[in-house]
Protein backbone atom coordinates (compact mmCIF):
# COMPACT_ATOMS: atom_id res chain seq x y z
CA UNK A 1 0.00 0.00 0.00
CA UNK A 2 1.25 3.48 -0.78
CA UNK A 3 2.26 5.84 1.99
CA UNK A 4 -0.27 8.25 3.44
CA UNK A 5 2.38 10.54 4.85
CA UNK A 6 6.03 10.80 3.97
CA UNK A 7 8.41 12.96 5.95
CA UNK A 8 11.45 13.19 3.72
CA UNK A 9 14.80 14.22 5.26
CA UNK A 10 13.34 17.11 7.21
CA UNK A 11 15.65 19.32 9.29
CA UNK A 12 14.72 22.08 11.67
CA UNK A 13 16.89 24.00 14.07
CA UNK A 14 16.17 26.72 16.58
CA UNK A 15 19.07 29.15 16.91
CA UNK A 16 21.66 26.44 16.35
CA UNK A 17 19.81 23.81 18.37
CA UNK A 18 19.06 20.96 15.99
CA UNK A 19 15.54 19.81 16.81
CA UNK A 20 15.18 17.62 13.72
CA UNK A 21 18.14 16.26 11.81
CA UNK A 22 17.30 14.90 8.36
CA UNK A 23 14.48 12.84 9.75
CA UNK A 24 12.45 10.56 7.49
CA UNK A 25 9.36 8.61 8.41
CA UNK A 26 6.69 6.85 6.40
CA UNK A 27 3.12 6.41 7.56
CA UNK A 28 0.91 3.83 5.88
CA UNK A 29 -2.85 4.15 6.10
CA UNK A 30 -4.91 2.22 8.61
CA UNK A 31 -2.28 1.70 11.29
CA UNK A 32 -1.40 3.08 14.67
CA UNK A 33 2.11 4.47 14.85
CA UNK A 34 3.88 5.29 18.08
CA UNK A 35 6.58 7.91 18.42
CA UNK A 36 8.75 7.71 21.49
CA UNK A 37 11.94 9.32 22.62
CA UNK A 38 13.39 11.29 25.51
CA UNK A 39 12.50 14.91 26.16
CA UNK A 40 13.88 17.22 23.50
CA UNK A 41 14.21 14.49 20.90
CA UNK A 42 12.06 16.43 18.43
CA UNK A 43 8.73 14.62 18.69
CA UNK A 44 6.53 17.67 19.04
CA UNK A 45 8.61 19.63 16.52
CA UNK A 46 7.89 16.85 14.05
CA UNK A 47 4.15 17.29 14.65
CA UNK A 48 4.50 21.04 14.28
CA UNK A 49 6.22 20.57 10.92
CA UNK A 50 3.62 18.11 9.65
CA UNK A 51 0.72 20.38 10.63
CA UNK A 52 2.32 23.50 9.18
CA UNK A 53 2.83 25.34 12.46
CA UNK A 54 6.56 25.39 11.69
CA UNK A 55 8.23 25.42 8.31
CA UNK A 56 11.13 22.98 7.82
CA UNK A 57 14.62 24.35 7.11
CA UNK A 58 15.09 21.60 4.51
CA UNK A 59 13.37 18.46 3.31
CA UNK A 60 9.73 17.97 2.48
CA UNK A 61 6.49 16.55 3.78
CA UNK A 62 4.16 14.74 1.42
CA UNK A 63 0.60 13.83 2.36
CA UNK A 64 -1.64 11.85 0.04
CA UNK A 65 0.73 12.53 -2.83
CA UNK A 66 0.76 16.28 -2.21
CA UNK A 67 3.52 18.42 -0.84
CA UNK A 68 2.19 20.10 2.31
CA UNK A 69 5.18 21.68 4.03
CA UNK A 70 4.52 24.91 2.12
CA UNK A 71 0.87 25.13 3.22
CA UNK A 72 -0.81 26.97 6.08
CA UNK A 73 -2.10 24.90 9.02
CA UNK A 74 -5.73 25.52 8.02
CA UNK A 75 -5.18 24.16 4.51
CA UNK A 76 -3.39 21.11 5.88
CA UNK A 77 -6.33 20.51 8.19
CA UNK A 78 -8.72 20.66 5.28
CA UNK A 79 -6.65 18.03 3.44
CA UNK A 80 -7.29 15.68 6.34
CA UNK A 81 -4.64 15.97 9.06
CA UNK A 82 -5.78 16.78 12.56
CA UNK A 83 -3.80 16.91 15.77
CA UNK A 84 -4.07 17.30 19.51
CA UNK A 85 -1.70 19.29 21.68
CA UNK A 86 0.44 18.20 24.56
CA UNK A 87 -0.68 21.24 26.58
CA UNK A 88 -4.40 21.70 25.99
CA UNK A 89 -5.06 24.64 23.65
CA UNK A 90 -8.79 24.91 24.00
CA UNK A 91 -11.04 27.86 23.27
CA UNK A 92 -11.20 28.72 26.92
CA UNK A 93 -14.02 31.26 26.99
CA UNK A 94 -16.32 28.90 25.17
CA UNK A 95 -18.28 25.95 26.47
CA UNK A 96 -17.12 22.36 26.08
CA UNK A 97 -19.95 21.70 23.63
CA UNK A 98 -18.92 24.66 21.49
CA UNK A 99 -15.32 23.47 21.53
CA UNK A 100 -16.56 20.25 19.97
CA UNK A 101 -18.85 22.00 17.50
CA UNK A 102 -16.03 23.96 15.94
CA UNK A 103 -13.80 21.33 14.27
CA UNK A 104 -16.14 19.89 11.60
CA UNK A 105 -15.16 21.06 8.14
CA UNK A 106 -17.29 22.86 5.59
CA UNK A 107 -19.78 24.33 8.00
CA UNK A 108 -22.03 26.44 5.81
CA UNK A 109 -22.90 28.74 8.69
CA UNK A 110 -19.27 29.70 9.18
CA UNK A 111 -19.31 31.51 5.88
CA UNK A 112 -19.68 35.26 6.33
CA UNK A 113 -22.33 35.66 3.65
CA UNK A 114 -24.25 32.45 4.23
CA UNK A 115 -24.43 33.05 7.99
CA UNK A 116 -27.30 35.48 7.35
CA UNK A 117 -29.49 32.72 6.00
CA UNK A 118 -30.44 30.54 8.92
CA UNK A 119 -32.13 28.02 6.65
CA UNK A 120 -28.86 27.39 4.86
CA UNK A 121 -27.06 26.12 7.95
CA UNK A 122 -29.53 25.13 10.61
CA UNK A 123 -30.01 21.54 9.51
CA UNK A 124 -26.27 21.04 9.37
CA UNK A 125 -25.86 22.56 12.83
CA UNK A 126 -28.48 20.16 14.19
CA UNK A 127 -26.73 17.16 12.65
CA UNK A 128 -23.52 18.43 14.16
CA UNK A 129 -25.10 18.47 17.59
CA UNK A 130 -25.80 14.74 17.25
CA UNK A 131 -22.13 14.11 16.56
CA UNK A 132 -21.16 16.28 19.51
CA UNK A 133 -23.57 14.37 21.72
CA UNK A 134 -22.02 11.07 20.68
CA UNK A 135 -18.53 12.36 21.35
CA UNK A 136 -19.58 13.69 24.75
CA UNK A 137 -21.03 10.29 25.53
CA UNK A 138 -17.92 8.41 24.42
CA UNK A 139 -15.66 10.67 26.45
CA UNK A 140 -18.05 10.83 29.42
CA UNK A 141 -18.10 14.62 29.34
CA UNK A 142 -21.84 15.17 29.35
CA UNK A 143 -21.91 16.60 32.86
CA UNK A 144 -19.51 19.41 31.89
CA UNK A 145 -20.80 20.01 28.34
CA UNK A 146 -22.13 23.47 29.12
CA UNK A 147 -19.28 24.58 31.37
CA UNK A 148 -16.67 26.92 30.04
CA UNK A 149 -13.69 24.86 28.97
CA UNK A 150 -11.52 26.90 31.37
CA UNK A 151 -13.56 25.58 34.30
CA UNK A 152 -12.90 21.87 33.85
CA UNK A 153 -10.07 19.67 35.11
CA UNK A 154 -6.79 19.14 33.28
CA UNK A 155 -7.65 15.54 32.46
CA UNK A 156 -10.97 16.57 31.01
CA UNK A 157 -9.16 19.16 28.91
CA UNK A 158 -7.04 16.38 27.42
CA UNK A 159 -10.23 14.50 26.64
CA UNK A 160 -11.60 17.49 24.74
CA UNK A 161 -8.33 17.63 22.83
CA UNK A 162 -9.04 14.05 21.77
CA UNK A 163 -12.72 14.87 21.22
CA UNK A 164 -11.87 17.63 18.80
CA UNK A 165 -9.83 15.25 16.66
CA UNK A 166 -12.78 12.85 16.70
CA UNK A 167 -15.05 15.62 15.46
CA UNK A 168 -12.87 16.60 12.53
CA UNK A 169 -13.39 13.62 10.21
CA UNK A 170 -9.70 13.34 9.25
CA UNK A 171 -7.58 10.80 7.41
CA UNK A 172 -4.61 11.13 9.73
CA UNK A 173 -4.67 11.94 13.42
CA UNK A 174 -1.59 13.10 15.32
CA UNK A 175 -1.95 12.79 19.08
CA UNK A 176 0.56 14.49 21.34
CA UNK A 177 0.54 12.61 24.66
CA UNK A 178 -3.19 11.89 24.74
CA UNK A 179 -3.02 10.27 28.18
CA UNK A 180 -0.73 12.72 30.01
CA UNK A 181 -2.50 13.85 33.17
CA UNK A 182 -5.27 11.32 32.73
CA UNK A 183 -5.92 8.61 35.34
CA UNK A 184 -4.87 5.06 34.36
CA UNK A 185 -8.36 3.69 33.94
CA UNK A 186 -9.29 6.54 31.63
CA UNK A 187 -5.97 6.21 29.80
CA UNK A 188 -6.84 2.59 28.99
CA UNK A 189 -10.24 3.79 27.88
CA UNK A 190 -8.64 6.39 25.58
CA UNK A 191 -6.58 3.73 23.83
CA UNK A 192 -9.67 1.56 23.52
CA UNK A 193 -11.50 4.46 21.88
CA UNK A 194 -8.61 5.14 19.53
CA UNK A 195 -8.57 1.47 18.46
CA UNK A 196 -12.29 1.45 17.93
CA UNK A 197 -12.24 4.57 15.79
CA UNK A 198 -9.32 3.24 13.81
CA UNK A 199 -11.18 0.04 13.08
CA UNK A 200 -14.58 1.54 12.36
CA UNK A 201 -13.42 4.50 10.29
CA UNK A 202 -10.08 3.22 8.97
CA UNK A 203 -8.17 6.18 10.37
CA UNK A 204 -4.45 6.36 10.79
CA UNK A 205 -2.98 7.45 14.09
CA UNK A 206 0.44 8.73 15.03
CA UNK A 207 0.78 8.92 18.78
CA UNK A 208 3.46 10.50 20.93
CA UNK A 209 3.23 8.81 24.30
CA UNK A 210 5.28 8.27 27.42
CA UNK A 211 3.14 5.43 28.73
CA UNK A 212 5.00 2.76 26.82
CA UNK A 213 3.03 -0.15 28.23
CA UNK A 214 -0.16 1.15 26.63
CA UNK A 215 1.48 2.40 23.49
CA UNK A 216 3.36 -0.84 22.82
CA UNK A 217 0.21 -2.84 23.44
CA UNK A 218 -1.74 -0.87 20.86
CA UNK A 219 0.65 0.45 18.24
CA UNK A 220 1.53 -1.43 15.06
CA UNK A 221 4.81 0.33 14.47
CA UNK A 222 7.16 2.38 16.64
CA UNK A 223 9.62 5.13 15.79
CA UNK A 224 12.23 5.84 18.43
CA UNK A 225 13.63 9.35 18.17
CA UNK A 226 16.75 10.77 19.73
CA UNK A 227 18.31 14.14 19.04
CA UNK A 228 16.12 14.71 16.02
CA UNK A 229 16.90 11.41 14.33
CA UNK A 230 15.16 8.06 14.06
CA UNK A 231 17.44 5.69 15.96
CA UNK A 232 15.22 2.64 15.91
CA UNK A 233 12.01 1.61 14.22
CA UNK A 234 9.86 -1.45 13.72
CA UNK A 235 7.25 -3.48 15.51
CA UNK A 236 6.87 -2.82 19.24
CA UNK A 237 8.63 -6.14 20.05
CA UNK A 238 11.56 -5.19 17.88
CA UNK A 239 12.02 -1.73 19.38
CA UNK A 240 11.58 -2.99 22.92
CA UNK A 241 14.38 -5.47 22.42
CA UNK A 242 16.63 -3.04 20.65
CA UNK A 243 19.63 -2.21 22.85
CA UNK A 244 19.48 1.34 21.48
CA UNK A 245 16.31 1.93 23.54
CA UNK A 246 18.12 1.53 26.83
CA UNK A 247 21.07 3.48 25.51
CA UNK A 248 18.86 6.44 24.53
CA UNK A 249 17.04 6.59 27.82
CA UNK A 250 19.78 5.67 30.24
CA UNK A 251 22.63 7.19 28.33
CA UNK A 252 24.45 3.88 28.75
Amino acid at each position, binding site marked *: MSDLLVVDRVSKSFKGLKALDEISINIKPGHIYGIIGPNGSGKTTLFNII*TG*VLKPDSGQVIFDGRRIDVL*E*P*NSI*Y*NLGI*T*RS*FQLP*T*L*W*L*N*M*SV*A*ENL*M*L*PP*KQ*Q*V*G*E*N*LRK*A*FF*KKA*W*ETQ*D*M*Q*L*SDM*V*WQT*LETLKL*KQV*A*LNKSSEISGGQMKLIELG*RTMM*SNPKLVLLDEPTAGVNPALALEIFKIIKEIKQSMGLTYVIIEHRYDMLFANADYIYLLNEGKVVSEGSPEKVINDPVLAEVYLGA
Partner: protein
Amino acid sequence: MDFNQLISIIVSTANFYAIWLILSLSLNYEYGYTGILNFGKVLFFSLGAYSSGFLAANLANIMAGVSFDICSVEAVQLRLDLAKAVPQLPLLVFVASLIMGAALSAAVAYLLYISTSRIKEGFVLGIILLSAGETSRIVVRNYEPVVCGYHGLVGIPNPYTAAGDPTTASFLLSITIWVIAGVAFLFINKLTATPYGRKLKAIRDNELAADIYGKKPSHERRKVLMIGSAMAGVAGVLYAYYLGFVAADDFTSLKTFDIWVAVMLGGVGNHLGAVTGSLVVTLIDRGTRVLRVFLANLSIPLETLYLRWIIVGVLMLLILMYRPAGIIPEKSIKTLGLLRIIERIKREKT
Protein backbone atom coordinates in the same frame (compact mmCIF):
# COMPACT_ATOMS: atom_id res chain seq x y z
CA MET B 1 -35.86 74.37 32.07
CA ASP B 2 -38.83 74.47 29.72
CA PHE B 3 -40.39 71.66 27.79
CA ASN B 4 -38.77 72.42 24.45
CA GLN B 5 -35.34 72.47 26.01
CA LEU B 6 -35.99 69.10 27.61
CA ILE B 7 -37.11 67.62 24.31
CA SER B 8 -34.03 68.89 22.54
CA ILE B 9 -31.78 67.46 25.26
CA ILE B 10 -33.48 64.08 24.96
CA VAL B 11 -33.29 64.07 21.16
CA SER B 12 -29.64 65.09 21.09
CA THR B 13 -28.78 62.47 23.73
CA ALA B 14 -30.58 59.86 21.67
CA ASN B 15 -28.64 60.93 18.58
CA PHE B 16 -25.30 60.73 20.34
CA TYR B 17 -26.31 57.42 21.82
CA ALA B 18 -27.21 55.99 18.43
CA ILE B 19 -23.84 57.06 16.98
CA TRP B 20 -21.97 55.72 20.00
CA LEU B 21 -23.93 52.51 19.73
CA ILE B 22 -22.81 51.89 16.15
CA LEU B 23 -19.20 52.46 17.21
CA SER B 24 -19.49 50.21 20.26
CA LEU B 25 -21.16 47.44 18.26
CA SER B 26 -18.40 47.59 15.68
CA LEU B 27 -15.68 47.50 18.34
CA ASN B 28 -17.39 44.63 20.08
CA TYR B 29 -17.49 42.77 16.78
CA GLU B 30 -13.79 43.41 16.31
CA TYR B 31 -12.50 43.03 19.84
CA GLY B 32 -15.22 41.17 21.70
CA TYR B 33 -15.68 38.53 19.04
CA THR B 34 -12.47 38.43 17.08
CA GLY B 35 -9.89 39.76 19.54
CA ILE B 36 -8.65 42.58 17.30
CA LEU B 37 -7.11 45.32 19.42
CA ASN B 38 -8.53 48.23 17.50
CA PHE B 39 -7.00 51.24 19.25
CA GLY B 40 -7.69 53.31 16.15
CA LYS B 41 -11.48 53.25 16.06
CA VAL B 42 -11.53 57.04 15.90
CA LEU B 43 -9.59 56.95 12.63
CA PHE B 44 -12.42 55.19 10.81
CA PHE B 45 -15.01 57.33 12.58
CA SER B 46 -13.18 60.44 11.41
CA LEU B 47 -12.81 59.15 7.84
CA GLY B 48 -16.60 58.99 7.64
CA ALA B 49 -16.90 62.54 8.94
CA TYR B 50 -14.18 63.85 6.60
CA SER B 51 -15.87 62.16 3.64
CA SER B 52 -19.10 63.99 4.44
CA GLY B 53 -17.45 67.37 4.78
CA PHE B 54 -15.24 66.90 1.76
CA LEU B 55 -18.06 65.71 -0.50
CA ALA B 56 -20.56 68.34 0.61
CA ALA B 57 -18.06 71.16 0.13
CA ASN B 58 -16.55 70.09 -3.17
CA LEU B 59 -19.77 68.94 -4.81
CA ALA B 60 -21.31 72.32 -4.06
CA ASN B 61 -18.38 74.02 -5.77
CA ILE B 62 -18.58 71.73 -8.78
CA MET B 63 -22.36 72.06 -9.12
CA ALA B 64 -22.16 75.84 -9.02
CA GLY B 65 -19.18 75.82 -11.37
CA VAL B 66 -17.09 77.96 -9.05
CA SER B 67 -13.75 77.38 -7.40
CA PHE B 68 -14.19 78.96 -4.01
CA ASP B 69 -11.86 78.01 -1.23
CA ILE B 70 -14.09 75.47 0.56
CA CYS B 71 -13.34 77.18 3.87
CA SER B 72 -14.31 80.66 2.75
CA VAL B 73 -17.48 82.42 3.86
CA GLU B 74 -18.70 82.47 0.23
CA ALA B 75 -18.38 78.71 0.00
CA VAL B 76 -20.39 78.20 3.18
CA GLN B 77 -23.09 80.52 1.88
CA LEU B 78 -23.04 78.72 -1.46
CA ARG B 79 -23.62 75.33 0.21
CA LEU B 80 -26.60 76.63 2.15
CA ASP B 81 -28.05 78.50 -0.85
CA LEU B 82 -27.60 75.51 -3.10
CA ALA B 83 -29.38 73.30 -0.60
CA LYS B 84 -32.31 75.72 -0.65
CA ALA B 85 -32.34 75.98 -4.45
CA VAL B 86 -32.08 72.21 -5.05
CA PRO B 87 -33.61 70.70 -1.89
CA GLN B 88 -33.10 67.08 -3.02
CA LEU B 89 -29.39 67.55 -3.44
CA PRO B 90 -28.34 67.28 0.24
CA LEU B 91 -30.06 63.91 0.58
CA LEU B 92 -28.19 62.58 -2.45
CA VAL B 93 -24.91 63.89 -1.08
CA PHE B 94 -25.73 62.32 2.28
CA VAL B 95 -26.27 58.91 0.70
CA ALA B 96 -23.09 59.33 -1.34
CA SER B 97 -21.22 60.24 1.85
CA LEU B 98 -22.50 57.12 3.60
CA ILE B 99 -21.19 55.00 0.75
CA MET B 100 -17.91 56.87 0.50
CA GLY B 101 -17.39 56.90 4.29
CA ALA B 102 -17.96 53.16 4.57
CA ALA B 103 -15.85 52.31 1.52
CA LEU B 104 -12.97 54.59 2.45
CA SER B 105 -12.86 53.29 6.02
CA ALA B 106 -12.92 49.69 4.83
CA ALA B 107 -10.17 50.39 2.30
CA VAL B 108 -7.92 52.07 4.87
CA ALA B 109 -8.60 49.22 7.30
CA TYR B 110 -7.54 46.76 4.61
CA LEU B 111 -4.29 48.61 3.91
CA LEU B 112 -3.39 48.99 7.58
CA TYR B 113 -4.24 45.36 8.24
CA ILE B 114 -2.12 43.91 5.46
CA SER B 115 0.75 46.17 6.50
CA THR B 116 1.02 44.18 9.74
CA SER B 117 -0.46 40.84 8.78
CA ARG B 118 2.92 39.12 8.69
CA ILE B 119 3.35 39.85 12.39
CA LYS B 120 1.33 37.54 14.55
CA GLU B 121 1.14 39.68 17.70
CA GLY B 122 -2.17 41.50 17.75
CA PHE B 123 -0.93 44.50 19.70
CA VAL B 124 1.29 45.53 16.76
CA LEU B 125 -1.83 46.12 14.69
CA GLY B 126 -3.34 47.93 17.68
CA ILE B 127 -0.42 50.34 17.91
CA ILE B 128 -0.37 50.87 14.14
CA LEU B 129 -4.06 51.75 14.22
CA LEU B 130 -3.59 54.06 17.19
CA SER B 131 -0.78 55.96 15.56
CA ALA B 132 -2.56 56.04 12.20
CA GLY B 133 -5.51 57.68 13.94
CA GLU B 134 -3.37 60.34 15.57
CA THR B 135 -1.29 60.91 12.45
CA SER B 136 -4.32 61.38 10.26
CA ARG B 137 -5.84 63.80 12.79
CA ILE B 138 -2.69 65.91 12.84
CA VAL B 139 -2.39 65.88 9.05
CA VAL B 140 -6.02 66.87 8.50
CA ARG B 141 -5.74 69.51 11.21
CA ASN B 142 -2.90 71.17 9.31
CA TYR B 143 -3.93 70.49 5.74
CA GLU B 144 -6.85 72.74 4.87
CA PRO B 145 -8.15 71.18 1.62
CA VAL B 146 -9.70 68.22 3.48
CA VAL B 147 -11.96 69.85 6.05
CA CYS B 148 -10.45 73.30 6.59
CA GLY B 149 -7.77 72.26 9.05
CA TYR B 150 -7.79 73.80 12.47
CA HIS B 151 -11.05 75.75 12.05
CA GLY B 152 -13.12 72.88 10.78
CA LEU B 153 -15.65 72.84 7.98
CA VAL B 154 -19.05 74.37 8.62
CA GLY B 155 -22.25 74.41 6.60
CA ILE B 156 -22.95 70.78 5.90
CA PRO B 157 -26.62 71.05 4.95
CA ASN B 158 -29.29 68.90 6.56
CA PRO B 159 -30.11 66.04 4.15
CA TYR B 160 -33.83 66.67 4.58
CA THR B 161 -33.74 70.30 3.49
CA ALA B 162 -36.56 69.32 1.11
CA ALA B 163 -38.86 69.03 4.13
CA GLY B 164 -38.78 72.80 4.34
CA ASP B 165 -39.16 73.43 8.03
CA PRO B 166 -35.75 73.09 9.84
CA THR B 167 -37.30 71.41 12.90
CA THR B 168 -38.92 68.73 10.77
CA ALA B 169 -35.69 68.30 8.83
CA SER B 170 -33.58 67.78 11.94
CA PHE B 171 -36.20 65.43 13.36
CA LEU B 172 -36.11 63.37 10.17
CA LEU B 173 -32.33 63.26 10.40
CA SER B 174 -32.56 62.04 14.01
CA ILE B 175 -34.93 59.29 12.94
CA THR B 176 -32.52 58.32 10.16
CA ILE B 177 -29.71 58.08 12.70
CA TRP B 178 -31.79 55.90 15.01
CA VAL B 179 -32.92 53.65 12.17
CA ILE B 180 -29.35 53.16 10.98
CA ALA B 181 -28.24 52.33 14.54
CA GLY B 182 -31.10 49.86 14.84
CA VAL B 183 -30.19 48.26 11.53
CA ALA B 184 -26.55 48.04 12.69
CA PHE B 185 -27.68 46.23 15.83
CA LEU B 186 -29.85 43.77 13.92
CA PHE B 187 -27.15 43.25 11.29
CA ILE B 188 -24.42 42.46 13.78
CA ASN B 189 -26.71 40.23 15.84
CA LYS B 190 -27.90 38.28 12.85
CA LEU B 191 -24.33 37.93 11.64
CA THR B 192 -22.80 36.67 14.87
CA ALA B 193 -25.51 34.51 16.43
CA THR B 194 -24.32 31.87 14.01
CA PRO B 195 -21.54 29.35 13.45
CA TYR B 196 -19.69 32.32 11.94
CA GLY B 197 -19.74 34.09 15.31
CA ARG B 198 -18.57 30.89 16.95
CA LYS B 199 -15.66 30.71 14.54
CA LEU B 200 -14.66 34.30 15.33
CA LYS B 201 -14.69 33.56 19.05
CA ALA B 202 -12.44 30.56 18.45
CA ILE B 203 -9.99 32.82 16.62
CA ARG B 204 -10.13 35.23 19.55
CA ASP B 205 -9.65 32.56 22.22
CA ASN B 206 -6.82 30.65 20.61
CA GLU B 207 -5.52 31.58 17.22
CA LEU B 208 -3.20 28.59 16.89
CA ALA B 209 -5.96 26.10 17.67
CA ALA B 210 -8.31 27.89 15.27
CA ASP B 211 -5.69 27.67 12.51
CA ILE B 212 -5.01 23.99 13.25
CA TYR B 213 -8.75 23.33 13.04
CA GLY B 214 -9.12 24.83 9.60
CA LYS B 215 -10.27 28.37 10.36
CA LYS B 216 -8.30 31.14 8.69
CA PRO B 217 -7.47 33.61 11.47
CA SER B 218 -5.71 36.28 9.44
CA HIS B 219 -8.20 36.17 6.60
CA GLU B 220 -11.19 36.41 8.95
CA ARG B 221 -9.65 39.17 11.05
CA ARG B 222 -9.06 41.25 7.96
CA LYS B 223 -12.69 40.95 6.90
CA VAL B 224 -13.92 41.72 10.40
CA LEU B 225 -11.74 44.82 10.64
CA MET B 226 -13.02 45.99 7.26
CA ILE B 227 -16.68 45.50 8.17
CA GLY B 228 -16.21 47.05 11.62
CA SER B 229 -14.41 50.03 10.11
CA ALA B 230 -17.11 50.52 7.51
CA MET B 231 -19.61 50.67 10.36
CA ALA B 232 -17.47 53.27 12.12
CA GLY B 233 -17.29 55.22 8.86
CA VAL B 234 -21.08 55.27 8.66
CA ALA B 235 -21.20 56.50 12.27
CA GLY B 236 -18.78 59.28 11.30
CA VAL B 237 -21.01 60.41 8.43
CA LEU B 238 -24.03 60.53 10.75
CA TYR B 239 -22.01 62.49 13.29
CA ALA B 240 -20.88 65.06 10.72
CA TYR B 241 -24.39 65.51 9.34
CA TYR B 242 -25.92 65.74 12.78
CA LEU B 243 -23.51 68.48 13.91
CA GLY B 244 -23.37 70.09 10.44
CA PHE B 245 -19.71 70.59 11.18
CA VAL B 246 -16.45 68.62 10.94
CA ALA B 247 -13.18 69.40 12.66
CA ALA B 248 -10.14 67.19 12.93
CA ASP B 249 -9.59 67.99 16.60
CA ASP B 250 -12.88 66.34 17.43
CA PHE B 251 -11.23 63.01 16.67
CA THR B 252 -8.56 62.58 19.31
CA SER B 253 -7.72 59.11 20.57
CA LEU B 254 -9.73 59.84 23.70
CA LYS B 255 -12.79 59.06 21.58
CA THR B 256 -11.39 55.63 20.82
CA PHE B 257 -11.02 54.93 24.50
CA ASP B 258 -14.54 56.13 25.26
CA ILE B 259 -15.72 53.39 22.97
CA TRP B 260 -13.42 50.90 24.66
CA VAL B 261 -14.86 51.94 28.01
CA ALA B 262 -18.37 51.42 26.65
CA VAL B 263 -17.54 47.90 25.46
CA MET B 264 -15.65 46.92 28.63
CA LEU B 265 -18.33 48.31 30.93
CA GLY B 266 -21.15 46.66 29.05
CA GLY B 267 -19.54 43.27 28.62
CA VAL B 268 -17.09 42.04 26.02
CA GLY B 269 -18.34 39.55 23.44
CA ASN B 270 -21.99 40.40 23.97
CA HIS B 271 -23.89 42.89 21.83
CA LEU B 272 -26.33 43.71 24.60
CA GLY B 273 -23.25 44.66 26.58
CA ALA B 274 -22.30 47.18 23.91
CA VAL B 275 -25.86 48.49 23.96
CA THR B 276 -25.73 48.97 27.75
CA GLY B 277 -22.15 50.22 27.93
CA SER B 278 -22.60 52.85 25.26
CA LEU B 279 -25.80 54.01 27.00
CA VAL B 280 -23.89 54.47 30.27
CA VAL B 281 -21.06 56.34 28.55
CA THR B 282 -23.49 58.58 26.62
CA LEU B 283 -25.50 59.39 29.73
CA ILE B 284 -22.36 60.34 31.66
CA ASP B 285 -21.07 62.40 28.74
CA ARG B 286 -24.34 64.24 28.06
CA GLY B 287 -25.34 64.38 31.74
CA THR B 288 -22.23 66.25 32.80
CA ARG B 289 -22.74 68.77 29.97
CA VAL B 290 -26.34 69.41 30.94
CA LEU B 291 -25.31 69.71 34.57
CA ARG B 292 -22.76 72.33 33.61
CA VAL B 293 -25.40 74.51 31.91
CA PHE B 294 -27.75 73.94 34.82
CA LEU B 295 -25.13 74.98 37.40
CA ALA B 296 -24.12 77.99 35.30
CA ASN B 297 -27.76 79.14 35.33
CA LEU B 298 -27.66 78.97 39.11
CA SER B 299 -24.35 80.92 39.03
CA ILE B 300 -22.44 78.08 40.62
CA PRO B 301 -18.93 78.22 39.12
CA LEU B 302 -18.19 74.52 38.86
CA GLU B 303 -16.61 72.90 35.82
CA THR B 304 -18.45 69.60 35.52
CA LEU B 305 -16.83 68.43 32.30
CA TYR B 306 -13.96 67.00 34.29
CA LEU B 307 -16.42 65.19 36.48
CA ARG B 308 -17.03 62.97 33.49
CA TRP B 309 -13.51 61.54 33.58
CA ILE B 310 -13.75 60.92 37.30
CA ILE B 311 -17.06 59.10 36.98
CA VAL B 312 -15.84 56.99 34.06
CA GLY B 313 -12.62 56.12 35.92
CA VAL B 314 -14.39 55.12 39.10
CA LEU B 315 -16.99 53.10 37.21
CA MET B 316 -14.28 51.31 35.26
CA LEU B 317 -12.44 50.40 38.46
CA LEU B 318 -15.61 49.17 40.13
CA ILE B 319 -16.53 47.06 37.13
CA LEU B 320 -13.06 45.54 36.89
CA MET B 321 -13.11 44.75 40.62
CA TYR B 322 -16.61 43.40 41.00
CA ARG B 323 -17.82 42.41 37.55
CA PRO B 324 -14.78 41.84 35.35
CA ALA B 325 -16.93 40.33 32.61
CA GLY B 326 -18.94 43.58 32.36
CA ILE B 327 -22.52 44.51 33.20
CA ILE B 328 -23.88 41.81 30.90
CA PRO B 329 -21.34 38.97 30.67
CA GLU B 330 -20.70 36.96 27.51
CA LYS B 331 -22.96 34.01 26.78
CA SER B 332 -22.61 30.99 24.53
CA ILE B 333 -23.84 31.46 20.99
CA LYS B 334 -27.04 29.48 21.06
CA THR B 335 -27.30 28.06 17.58
CA LEU B 336 -29.95 25.45 17.01
CA GLY B 337 -27.36 22.71 17.50
CA LEU B 338 -26.26 24.00 20.89
CA LEU B 339 -29.87 24.51 21.99
CA ARG B 340 -30.49 20.89 21.18
CA ILE B 341 -27.57 19.79 23.34
CA ILE B 342 -28.80 21.99 26.21
CA GLU B 343 -32.24 20.44 25.89
CA ARG B 344 -30.86 16.90 25.96
CA ILE B 345 -28.84 17.62 29.07
CA LYS B 346 -31.89 19.05 30.80
CA ARG B 347 -33.88 15.98 29.86
CA GLU B 348 -31.22 13.66 31.28
CA LYS B 349 -31.11 15.53 34.55
CA THR B 350 -34.81 15.11 35.20
